[in-house]
Each structure stands twice: as C-alpha cells, then as structure tokens.
C-alpha cells in the first residue's frame, strides 16, 4: 500500500507540471497585450520594448514559463489588477470556505445515496424501488442552482427557519455558521446524491447475482450481513470511481451555488475575475481548481486501492 501511494505521489509531479504548462499557455491565448494595458494612453514603442525586456517578455516562451513557474513555487501568484491584493492570499482565505461546502455536500450525498441505492436494489421493481428511481431521475435533471433557489424560497423566505443568504465564519458561532451552510450543501449534494443512488443500485443489482453472495446465503449468513458486508462492499468499488468524477462536478457546482447564496468562496472569486477580465485572478483560480481536482483524484485512487486490493498489485511481478 505504501509503495502504491509513493508511486501515485511521484506521478503527481508530471501531472502538476503539465497543468501549470497548460494554464500558462492558455494565458498566452487571452486577447490583449499586458504591456499595452499597463501603458494605456502613454503607449510608446521604445518604452514598451524596454518594459518587455524588463519583464522578460522578449524571451522565448519556454524561458518565460520557467520564470513564471519559479515565481508560482515561491508563492508569488501575481496581484489582482483591481484590488492589488496578492492572488494567493485571497485564495488561501477562500479555500476552506469552498472546501467545507464541497465536503459537507459530498457527505450528505453519500449518507442518502448509499441506503437509498441499497434499499432500491434489494427490493427491485417494487413500488419502493420505482419511487426512489423517480426521485433520482428528478434529482439528476434538477439544476442545482434552481434547487438552491427553491430551498431558499421555502426555508428562508416563506418559513423563516433558516437565515437569508450569506456566509458567517465559524468564529461568529458554530450554529450560526452551519445554519448558513445547510441550504447550499443540500442544494449541491442532492444532484450528486441522485447520480450516486442510481449507480449504487445498478452495481448492487450486479453484485447480488454473483456466486459469493449466493454462497454467503447458502452458508446461512443473516440477510442483513449479506447485503451490508458481502454485497455492498464490492458494489461500492465502481461507486468510488464515480465519486472521483463527482468531485469535479462538485467543484463546478460549488461555483454556481456560491453565486446563489452569496458565499465568498473560490467560485465567487473566479467568476468575478472572469467577468472583470482580471487575468491574474483568473489564472490563480484556474490553477487552484485544477490542483484541487488533481489532489482529490489522488485521494480517490488511494481509497480505490484500499477497497480493491487487486489495484495495489497491478503491474507487480511482471
């Protein structure tokens, strides 16, 4: 297992390098010459050339990339054109906010999806199964931001049970903090929950047909244990793969949900940057999102190997 994790960590280096290179190249595509922006009306060819030399913009792109990368590693992610604050500072402040939302909604999704999928699968083609599957279909088709708005309309505006939009840091009271996060997390989690439920049901249906489940039943294992220990554990393996994919969707969904509920997370930061064309901010946003995605995939890979020992030994002894 240790060997496997080390191998995966080493593989991370080229991946991260590739991502930084892609982001760097992408920033070259963006219309607009930075020197021109900097000088504005005072544009003058000689001064422009000088500034280009000063900033290393006359060097070949690959050299520029190396410099840029060196600055990134040292923690210099540039400054926002509008607020002049270091981009990395803003990102570091916002990461926990978005991460908390993502983790909460993921937990919520799993908490509902696992029992719902299992129940649906052990009683297939019954009224119960059909209602779970209908709800899942509705969940898959429901735009998460619209669901968020509906929940907000019901629980905050009509019933007044939960506070109106916004974000309250943990320091201002735990209850206050979570009461602001409940609706965003539910809105974000339910769509994933629907997808996971369908998947868990499908893979449970496959697994319960397999021989070892029949064996377990034949030797008199209690049905509860057959379902939860023998079948579910194996049915969860494909679920973990999809969970990895879902993390990407969660990061994307969080961007939209943050906009609905006015949460000052990474998504809000990125969307503001894109609309204002603040490219330093956008660059930081894309980098951090890509890194989050890569690291979450690493976690998924590791847990995958934990659940399925076959993965760990793949490629060994060849």
């Amino acid at each position, binding site marked *: 297992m240790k060997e496997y994790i080390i191998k995966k960590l080493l593989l991370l280096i080229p991946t991260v390098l590739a991502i930084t290179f892609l982001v760097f190249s992408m920033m070259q595509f963006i219309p607009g010459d930075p020197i021109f922006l900097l000088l504005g009306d005072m544009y003058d060819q000689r001064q422009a050339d000088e500034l280009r030399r000063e900033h290393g913009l006359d060097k070949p792109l690959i050299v520029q990339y190396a410099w840029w990368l060196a600055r990134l590693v040292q923690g210099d992610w540039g400054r926002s054109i509008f607020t002049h604050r270091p981009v990395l500072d803003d990102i570091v402040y916002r990461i926990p906010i978005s991460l908390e939302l993502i983790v909460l909604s993921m937990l919520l999704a799993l908490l509902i999806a696992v029992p719902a999928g299992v129940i649906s699968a052990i009683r297939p083609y019954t009224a119960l199964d059909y209602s779970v599957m209908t709800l899942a279909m509705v969940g898959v088709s429901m735009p998460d931001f619209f669901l968020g708005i509906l929940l907000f309309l019901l629980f905050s*505006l009509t019933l007044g049970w939960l506070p109106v939009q916004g974000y309250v840091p943990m320091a201002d009271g735990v209850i206050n903090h979570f009461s602001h996060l409940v609706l965003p997390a539910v809105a974000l989690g339910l769509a994933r929950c629907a997808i996971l439920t369908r998947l868990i049901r499908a893979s449970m249906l496959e697994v319960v047909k397999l021989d070892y489940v029949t064996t377990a039943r034949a030797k008199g294992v209690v049905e509860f244990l057959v379902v939860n220990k023998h079948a579910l554990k194996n049915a969860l393996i494909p679920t973990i793969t999809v969970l990895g994919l879902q993390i990407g969707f969660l990061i994307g969904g969080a961007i939209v949900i943050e906009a609905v509920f006015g949460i000052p997370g990474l998504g809000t930061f990125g969307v503001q940057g*894109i609309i204002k064309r603040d490219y330093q901010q956008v660059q930081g946003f894309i980098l951090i999102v890509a890194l989050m*995605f890569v690291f979450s995939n690493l976690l998924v890979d590791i847990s995958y190997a934990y659940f399925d020992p076959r993965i760990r030994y793949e490629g060994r002894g060849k």
Partner: protein
Amino acid sequence: MTPKYRARSLLGLTLRRLSRSYSALWGLFMVCALIVVAALADVIAPYGPAEIVAGGSSLEPPSLQHLMGVDLLGRDVFSRVIYSSRIAFYVGIVSIVLSLLPGIPLGLVAGFYGGRLDKAVMMVMDIILAFPIFLLAIVIMVILEPSTTNVVIALGIVRIPIYARVVRGSVLSVKEQEYIEAVHALALGRLRMLFRHILPNCMAPIIVTSTLSVATSILIESSLSFLGLGTQPPTPSWGWDLKANLVFIDINPWIVIFPGLAIFLTTLAFNMLGDGLRDALDPRLKR
C-alpha cells in the same frame, strides 16, 4: 413468395421497445412538445421577448394576461420563457453536432486501425476527459468572450472525447463481427467500409449519448448564463433570467420559478428519453 422474417428498421424497433416504458414515452412526448414550442415560439408567445407590455407596472404576479407574471422591466415572463427554449435547443443540438463531427472520425480511425494511432488519439482524449465538462467550459469561456455561440463552441470541444470513446468502443466490437469479414472479402474501399458498414452499426450508443448530452448541455448553458458567463442580454435565456430576477425573489418569486421550471422540465425530458433509448437500443442493459 413472402419472406419468413420481415426486415425491421432500427427506428421501428426502437419505437416499439420505447413504447414499453412509460417514462421513455413521457420523455419522448415532452421532447416533441418542447420542439413544437420552440419552433412555434412566434405563434405561442403573446408578446415579443423584449417587448415592454405591462404599461408601466413591473414585477407583477401571474395573471390571465401574463401567465407567468411580469419582470422588473415590464416584460412578459411567459413570452421570454417560450423564446428562451430556442436558445436551449440551439445550444443543445448544435453543440452536439460540433462534437460529433470530429468525435466520430477520431473514434472510427482509432478503433479501426488500432495500434499506436489508437493509443495516441485515446491518450489525448483521456486527458481531456479527466477534467469535468463544466470546469473545462468555464476555462474556454475565459479565452472566448461570453456569448451563446461561444458556449456552443466550448461545449462542442469538451465533448469530442466522449464521442471518440463511445465510437471507438463500438467499432472494436463491430469489427470482429462476421459481416465485416464478409465486407473484407468483397475488398471494398476502406472509407466505404468505415462509413457504410461499420458506422451504422455504432449508431445506437451515439444516439443514446447524444440524447443524454442535450440534457447536460442545456444544464451547463443555463449554469453559465446564470453566472453571467453564457448567453448575454438581449438574447433571452433561462439561466440569465433566473439570475436577473433572483434579486426580486422576495417580491415576486414566480418570475424566478418559471424559468427554473423550464430548465428542469427540458432536462428531465431529455434524460427520460435518453434512459429509455438506452434500455431500448442496448439489449445487454435490458431488464
């Protein structure tokens, strides 16, 4: 002399199998209804999408004159919801055509020739596929200006690998079939073989993926427009209207609910039809 077995077209077979599932039939019905709505928007919508109709009043709740209420600028929300369906269909269908055009040949070639070419193509496709569509679309929108056409282009690009993968997978299984051996024996040209004999037998997964993709395309377009990164006014779109009306949700929730419902119902329709088609076209997944 009557033939013992009547030849059945893929369409006839599919329709027959579709009709066995209620949810698929509902999906088909809803999709057809939505197509009619989008096509006849001029006839159905009582007002123009940008027409100021309420005579100075704004944010009115639904009434007989204005079935879904009136927005801040005094525009009829019902008419806007109807006209926006055109944008949704435009995005849904054109983006898929854009990804099919390069996706199908890439998958055909990779699957048919195999070897290094296959490995190279699929590696590039897998790298793109590793990133979630929505995030990729956002990144592409950074480079391109936010507009409906650019959303279509972004969605078209990010889905190429999905089609390449789907087509390659079916080519791999189709090319082992006996009738392809027969085609080999006839020594027909490569192109003719690929497009006349192999591709038609890969159509089922392409159709299923496309139907489900329309649903996600519409979801993504409305999410992007909701963020202000997609369709821009004055073009009417559900996502943008939702965003613009959201500020007034405490005064008039209806003008928020209806555009949202429109997105939901359209996505639901294509998802239900797509699921039904998958069950109908892929006998292995049949219950």
